Structures are given as C-alpha cells and as structure tokens.
C-alpha cells in the first residue's frame, strides 16, 4: 500500500478498520475531527496497538514522540499522508 499514492479517504478508511479491530468503535464513527481519547474512548494502551497496525498498513514509522501528537483522526491522516 505504501507504494501507491494514498488518498485521504483511503487513509481514513484504513484507520477506521484498525480502530474497529482494536477498540470496537464502529467504522463510521471514525472521522477526521474525532479525538482518539475524548471522542472514541481509546486508551493509551490501545493507541500503541493502533499505531503498530497503522505502521504495517501504511508503511510508515510512527515514533513515540510523534504518536503523542496524534490527538485526532485528522492528525493521524495528515501524518500518514506526509510520511508514507
């Protein structure tokens, strides 16, 4: 997936799949303006799992200090788009 240009919709859809798998949040709840912690009720342990799965899915590296800045789904989409 890392080889082709990902659209924003691809990334949101991919993240939504991961978030549903890890935390049981319905995929249509996972939209750009949502905060992982405050809106989607995802704890710090689940965020680590989501990050690892996102790395595999999008072929990116998400170091811990970058992960701390990914507050919303939109933040994650922007990061993946820039770094994949």
């Amino acid at each position, binding site marked *: 997936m890392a080889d082709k240009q990902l659209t924003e919709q691809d990334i949101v859809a991919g993240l939504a799949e991961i978030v549903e798998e*890890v*935390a*049981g949040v319905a995929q249509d709840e996972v939209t750009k303006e949502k905060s992982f912690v405050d809106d989607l009720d995802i704890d*710090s*342990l*689940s965020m680590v*799992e989501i990050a*690892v799965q996102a*790395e595999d899915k999008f072929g990116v590296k998400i170091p811990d200090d970058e992960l701390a800045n990914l507050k919303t789904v939109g933040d994650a989409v922007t990061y993946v788009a820039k770094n994949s």
Partner: protein
Amino acid sequence: MSNAEVVVTGLGATTPLGGDVESTWDGLLTGRSGVARLDEDWVERFELPVKIAARLAVEPTEVLPRVEARRLDRSEQVGMIAARQAWQDAGFGEDDVDPERLGVVVGTGIGGATTLLNMDDLLETSGLRKVSPLTVPMLMPNGPAAYIGLELKARAGVHAPVSACASGAEAIAMAWRMLRTGEADVVVAGGAEACIAAITMAGFAQSRTMSTRNDDPAAASRPWDVERDGFVLGEGAGIVVLERAEYAKARGARIYASLAGIGTSADSYHITAPDPEGTGQARAMTAALRTGGIDPARVGHVNAHATSTPVGDVTETVAVRKAIGEHPVLTAPKGALGHLLGAAGAVESVATVLSLYHGLIPPTQNLSEIDPGVSHDVVTGEPRKVDLDVAINDSFGFGGHNVSLAFAAV
C-alpha cells in the same frame, strides 16, 4: 459492624461441565465428565505422557464481546464471565452498591501464563513491535480481580490471593474477613484459572502428579479410588457474592447460605506433598469451626479437595477425622470437573452452597473401589438427599496452603 454474619447471595461459574452454575450443577448431579482427549498438536510433538484435560464446556469468546475478549487473558475472560453471572444472580444491577462499600477478591494459581508464552513467542519471532501493550495486564495474576473490580466499580479493596490450588478458597476467606471487619458491605469473591498449555502440562507431568489414563479420559479423575493415578488439569472460574447479612436482608436478597466460619493454615512440611498426618489440614478445619462457633457434630458434609492423587486423597480424610470426626458425608467433585487449580476452591464452594441449599450431595465420579485408608461415607452413584446444617469445603495448595470454609444453612 464487626463480627457481622456473612451470607452468600449470588453464584456464578463457567467450568468443564457447563458455561454456568445450572449446567455445572446438573453435570455434577448426573455424573457427566468434563475430561477429554486434547487435540492440540503439542501433545504429540512433545510426546507428553498426559494427553487429557478438562477444557471449558463453553468457549469464553462465544460469550464475551469480541473487543473485550481480545483485551483479556483467558483466565480473565472466565473470571469476568463468572463474576457477571454471580452479580446478576445476586439481583444487583449497575451502581446498586456504594463503590466504597464494595470489594473484589479473586485469586488464581497460575494467572496469565498463556499470554506470557504467546507474547514471548511473538517477541522471538517478530520482535518488539508485535508484543501487545496489554501483555502485562493480561499476564498479571491480579488481572482477573482487577478487571472484575473495574467492571463493578469496586473501591473498598480489590485483592488477588495466590496460593496455588487453594487460591479460590483463600479469596473467599479473605472476603469473609473484609465483611467481618466492616471494610465492605458486599464482596465478590472466587477464583479463575485457564492455563492448559504445553509447558504446564509438561511441568505437572514431570512432577508425576497427573493421571496418564489417556485411553479413558472420563475415568481418569477418580478421587479415593484404589486405581487413581493423579489429577486431571482443568480450567474455569467460580465466583460468589458475599454480603453482610444485615445488608442482604435490608434489600430483600435471596440468601443461599451463610459463610459461618473460615480457617486457614500452613503445613510448612514440603513444597508439594501434604503433611501425611494431615495436621495442617485439620488445623484449617478446626479454625473454620472455631471462627464460626460451630460444634463439629453439626457438620454433615465435607466437599473435599481430593484431587485423585495417590497421597493427598487419604491424608485429607485423616484430617477430617481429626478435626470433625467420622460422621460427615464426603464427596469429591474433581472426579467430574478435573482440577481447576486456583478456581477449584471457588467452583467447589458453589457446589457446597448448592448442596446446603438443595439438600443434595453430588456423587464422586469413578469411585469403583474405595481406598482402604478411607473410612468415611462417600457419596457415589446417585446424588444423596440429606438435610444439612453445616457443610465444609476444603482446598489445599502446593506450598502447604490449607483453607477450610464452613457454610451453614439459613
């Protein structure tokens, strides 16, 4: 508030005989066996001499929501399932008990060993990234207690005693103390265990404590029988809801029985073998009678620890004779259930409470010819109808831990 009477108001279980209390109790009464041949590839790969175990009748993943199940070790899954059943059976809903007056005590013998093994495999094969951030909360032996505490919002104290095969009973004893000393009004207590894996099977097999009756799994666990050759490893959970009697009566709860007294002791004799004189075990039973203010003559039944090992089974009857006498009628539920280690004392406490409540003692399975060292009346064949005043549940663990719980009819 101290020295309050403690009563049992809720029961929950998931065992090799069934996914709940009703099916487990039915299995004990009708003489089903939870033991079967293991079909895992490691049994043959490692040429294990023991090829049988008592797996759960109902897979936890069939009961729990998917996301919850993936966050929990199997030992936590079974504990949670049994706790929810017990909570509901007690007639409690969400937020019905003041969190600061609610406690949880759930023990385990082994804890999240399968998580530890799986995550170590992942670390070795795939590196750090694949190790789950939930590894530690899944493998820690206080995990079942902690997750149940979170679920029920228990804030009076959440504890997880670890004393091998006495853990579940010790949890109930600890809960009794919390209620008697006024630390809580309600305590959810019991044990959870799910550690059937190549290494546990291999380790127990190497200690020569397990049955190798692989060709006849249903007959392998045979407490007190002359042909017994070891225990059968099982998995499951048992949970009871205990309350101060005053609290239970005020809310109009159904009361199964009282937990009149508890006794604990230690052998300080050998790391795995019980003191053959049964001295430590007898002291636990005597303590249960003393704390309950119970005359030994009132004890009509002992739900025994008897695991189907050559040494332990007879020792326990020596202890019963010393502490209580010849009169209690015995049964050994492990003939049907196998040995649930840290959950055993809790599941068997559920059975003991139901024996008092229904006036019915389930038979000991596979007892064809009784060991000549046993002089007590042991129930075999059909369940025994008997009016009981006091019934005792015994649990003993590797390490010389002895726990005796004295339940009384109300």
